[in-house]
């Protein structure tokens, strides 16, 4: 069915689990990371790059912002679309600074999550 992998970077295990469940039910392969550094590790060690990265902002060890900065500097990874999701009150403003492909405010709706994922991880779904 040719769905591309989603790299899910979220520090809250409950939230990460439920999003992964939603995406899995929709048959998207999901790779999870608890924070930015872990995500970078996964990206750099995997031969196939994910179709997109679903990125939380406030995380321990390496925040979403820090991750995004590194990722944009890496030519191999720079092209991967990044969707930022955040519970921060001024999330859209902070996210805009990272120039994400899209922004998902928390609490997010299941359909919104799926819509965003489908846009980048379905063949022809990409804009």
């Amino acid at each position: 069915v040719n769905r591309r992998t989603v790299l899910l970077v979220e520090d809250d295990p409950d939230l990460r689990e439920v999003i992964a469940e939603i995406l899995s039910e929709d048959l998207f392969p999901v790779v999870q990371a608890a924070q930015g550094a872990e995500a970078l590790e996964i990206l750099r060690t995997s031969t196939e790059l994910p179709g997109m990265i679903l990125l939380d902002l406030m995380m321990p060890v390496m925040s979403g912002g820090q991750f995004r900065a590194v990722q944009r500097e890496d030519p191999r990874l720079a092209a991967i679309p990044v969707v930022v999701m955040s519970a921060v009150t001024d999330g859209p403003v902070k996210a805009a600074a990272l120039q994400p492909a899209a922004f998902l405010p928390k609490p997010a709706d299941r359909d919104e999550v799926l819509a965003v994922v489908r846009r980048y991880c379905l063949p022809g779904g990409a804009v």
Partner: protein
Amino acid sequence: MSLLGDDGSARPDGSVDRPAVGNGAPRPPRQDGDPTPTIAIGASAGGLEALKRLLAALPAQAKLAFVVVQHLSPSHESLLTSALAAASPLEVVEVRDGMSLAAGRVHVIPPNTALVLEGDRLRLHRRDEAVRPPTPIDTFMRSLAAERKASAIGVVLSGTGSDGTQGLKAIRAAGGRTYAQEPSTAVHDGMPRSAIAADAVDVILPPEAIAADLAALAQGEPPPSEGEIAHGEENGAFRQILHLLKVRTGVDVSRYKPTTLRRRIARRMALVRAVGDDEYLRRLRQDPAQLQALHDDLFIHVTSFFRDPDVFAALGEHVFPALLERGTDVPIRLWVPGCSTGEESYSLAIATLELLEARGVGVPIQIFGSDISERAIRYARAAEYPSDIAEHVSEDRLKRFFEQTAKGYRIARSVRDTCVFVRHDLTADPPFSHVDLLSCRNVLIYFGAALQTHVVPTFHYALNEPGFLLLGRTETLSGFRELFTVIDPEHKIYARRPGAGLVRAVQPRAAETFERGLAQAAGPAARAAQDLPGALDLLLLSRYVPAAVLVNDALEIVQVRGKTGPYLEPAPGTASLSLMKMARDGLAADLIPLVERARAENVPVRKEGVRLDQGGKVSGVDLEVAPVSGSSLSGRHFVVVFRERPPSSQPARAPSEGGADEGSVASLREELAATKAYVGSVIERHAATNQALGESNQELQAANEELQSANEELETAQEELQSTNEELTTVNDELQARYQEVNELGNDLQNLVTSADIPIVIVDRERKVRRFTPGARTAFNLIPGDVGRAIAEIRPNVDAPELDRWIAEVIESTTVKEAEVRDGSGRWQRLQIRPYQTADRRIDGAVVSLVDIDALRAALMETRRARDFAAATLETVPVPVVVLDGALRVTSANAAFYQVFRSSPAATTGRALREVERGPWASADLARRLDQAMDTGAPFQDVELEYDLAEVGHRTVLLSGRAIPEASGGSRSLVLAIQDVTDRRRIEEERARARSEAAQRFLNEAGAAMLPESLDYHATLAALARLVVPRLADWCIVDLVEPDGAIRQAAAAHVDPAKERRARALRRRFRPEAQPERGVAWVIRTGKPVIFPEVNDLGWLAGALGAEHPELLRELGARSYVSVALRGRTGVIGAISLVRGSSDTRYGAEDLAVAEGLGQRAGLAIENARLYVSAREAVVARDDFLAIAAHELRTPLSTLNLQLQTLAAARGAELAEAVAAGKLERAIKQTRRLASLIDSLLEVSRITAGTLTLHGEESDLSEIVRDVVQRLGPAAEAAGCALTVRAEEPVKGLWDPLRLDQVVTNLLQNAIRYAPGVPIELSVEGDARHARLSVRDHGPGIPREWRARIFDRFEKRGGQSQEGLGLGLYIARQIVEAHGGAIRIESEPGEGTRFVIELPRERGGGRFA
């Protein structure tokens, strides 16, 4: 070399004997016939003490007569006698003229007298005042020496100067004994030192020891009398002494006159207390120093400068012209044998130099001084002499040829260079040669006739042709007419006769010199011509004459001719020229009888064929002895001729052997017989000779005695002459002193007149000019030629036409006339004419003087002008002035006074001031001030008074007063000036009001200026600083108190923008807190202002401002300083310091008021700003809290939402029961999370609101921990954390158990959350006061930078949480602290983390309900 004479002695080595006192054997008692032993004691400054010491130490029964000669003031009665009487056991009397000396009595010289001894009587003479300094000690000691000879004793004690030195010399020369006080014991050591230096002292002791020595002496043996000496036997010991001297010192005195020797030896013996010659001899043998002392005493040197001055004149007359005829290119050579300490040599040198200079010829001179005494020679070379040589040397010569030294005089180098001194024994050493003048005064008198016979030819040899010999007064050359002719019999000058003179073969050493002299003599042609016959003779003698010798009566070889080697040879042992000793073996036996025969028969005798054995070779010789006599030979002489027999004529007795023996025996017998005969004749002849010698000796002794008495007579005559001379000298000196006085008087007058620069003319009775001062030349138009002209003829330069008449009046009336006249240049002069009064009050003319009084008159005029000026000024000034007298009555007042006070003189003058109406005069304050000013003379200024005057209304005046010092005889007065300041006061008040309004405006303005910016207090402070500069300050700084109390500079401004930066950087290291008592720190601490209108000490200000360098303040400018507090509602929050630097204005009270107003407003503005800031910070914190809370809430909300939506999406589909249950479970979990979060938020909210309360009860921390562990055990297990708990022991305290449960839960949850998979250890422990809980994980640890903030709100481990609000630790801390406990964290990255809470077990400081 010379021996002791009768005119004094000098021993240059200063050696002194210190005999032990009382070492002698019992002595025979003194016979009554002897004169009393008399001791002259001389003393001067400091002498009284020494005298007392000496006299006190004497035994009361001392059989000695003392004469004390002390320098006394001529004009005061002497207390010396009584002073000494108190100290001495002996009787002490003051000398009366003619008083006899008495044993056991001390005779004290009265003041102002000269004391001498005549016979046994003391004679007093008027002191010769011309002799300066007076020398009474010398005078008396000389007389004592003359009277008592060897029994005279002299003592010199403490004193300055050199009196006594000559006296001691005289005593010593007479054979007496001399003492000097040990200088170190003397108060003034001048006199003892002088005497010691002059070698006039035998014994040097402290006064007490002198006394002891004298006492011992009194019991001892008297010194031998002259008669004893003259007739003393020349016993064996005496000869042995001479022998010892010869052997040890090399000086043979055996041919010196024995009398002299005897006297010297006796003196030495007396000094060392030797009894008898034998004992003395023994001492000499044992003690080389004694022998040396004797040697030195024998050759005591008596000499002085220019001895017999007329001799030197005679030399100039007779000798030098002849010497100078020879030409000036050859140096003049002088020889002074026996030169002693060099005085004669130097005298001759000086005389010669003077003479040559007078004649203007530059001939070099060489003077040889020789003496047997090495010490004398050293002294002579040193050329330093005591100051008393001035007696003999004229002042001119002293100046020209001497240098003054500390001790006396030193011969000038120019003179010293001409003199050479060598040690030389005239009787033994070869003489000098080519001498032009030989001065040998008073030397020959000490030689025996034989020695003279030897020495005089030596002189002849030494002298050049022409050459001269100078002898002493009493010496003659009667026996040597063939060698010398008399030139000046009176002065004993002899000229050398031409000729070779006697050949001095007697002296081997001299002979060598003689030969050398001959060889050198080949030089001058004249000399060669003279010696030609002699040379011829020598040639013939040496070539053709048989070996021969000339012997004298004692058979000593005098001359040798031909080769005498085969017949004579030097004998072993002491070198001898005795023919008998030198004759070779065999010859003597034949020679002696021959010579005896020739002597007896007085004909030539001969013996032929004498056998001579020369080292085995036997030869024959013919001997011939012929008596020789001639005018030039003294005594009989014999020529002994040796003729060698030809070998062929040898007698034929050699061949037969037996005959030879017999011949030998016969020959030996013959020899023996001859020798016997010779010995017999010799013995006989010696006996005869001895007898003859004894007789002639006695004759000579008698002659000597006669001569001695004649000499003494001559000496007496000389002394008389000398005293006459001294008298004349005294008169001369007196006249000279008078002349000096007159001269000084003249000089004084001259200087007085010249320095006074007053024109003075002295006229005589005839009014003729007698004398005038230099100043009078211009004033009176006088020239030096005017002396003697009548004053009327002079046209003086002053307007005094009546001068002549005035002078006449003055002389007539003997009154003083004065007039003020003008001189040519219009200056005023006071002309004064006084009668000229002589010493006998006779009027002998008049003295006219002029004194310039122009300046005086000018000053007078000036004073008058000043007075008028002052009066005019007073009247003119618009200021009222009133003058008060001592009783504060009005003396006068000026016009302004009357005008201002609408008063009149009548109502004022003469009244007491306080009674004057119309004015503030009754004021008590004024009265007090006036009294004070009058009493102390201190002025007062600006005393403010007010008064009302009907016409003019209310007035304010300032009064200033000054006392005028009383004039002579007058009383003090006081000037009072009144200044109306009513108008000025009004203006000042208006100005003050204006200023105050301006200040108020400024403050309002400042308030307004600070307002718009008041939300940012830094901006407020900057605005404040800008506002102040330059209106209120040239620069200013604003300081604020930090929450911790530190003072921090918050703003600064400077009128010069370039300096503003420096003003900001005022402090680098220093802080105002360092000076808590001054400036900013003080203002902030006390809230009181500081004002320094005039800052003088920049260092002080630097401390006040907390500035680093005073220098910095100088750059910024600092003259006036004020600092006030910035006040907020709650107190002082800072200070503002204002400084004026460049401008001239100083801070005053008004500025301070403005500054304080400013401080008030600025403080409030700052406080407002701060409040605003903290309010805004609170808002920001609240917003942050809300944002984080929202974020934290949204995360579980997202999860819940997505979970529920998943469920909803699956609504239509079949969902497995388990899946659905899991999803629901998770959803429910999220709601729990949400609820927990909301609880935490509420908790924080409570804590922030301060409504957290504790419910304390007895709790066990271990139990709480165990509960929590049990509750969270599953979670820990799920996270893989093994829990280790050590909380067995109950640790109890008064705590809120629910809250502590919350804390422990938080900490454990935290550990599980951040350190999953690694062990966690919990432990509880407690001591008496505290309970402690430790939670340790082994996780990644916490970086240092986070540790500090980890207990704050919204801070989470690692900066961002996985879960939760980050409030747990914050809440834990709040709870622990509410219990009065503390929480801390220990962690290193990679090492895990340990949280420790500590709780007090008692309820202390906790916030319990």
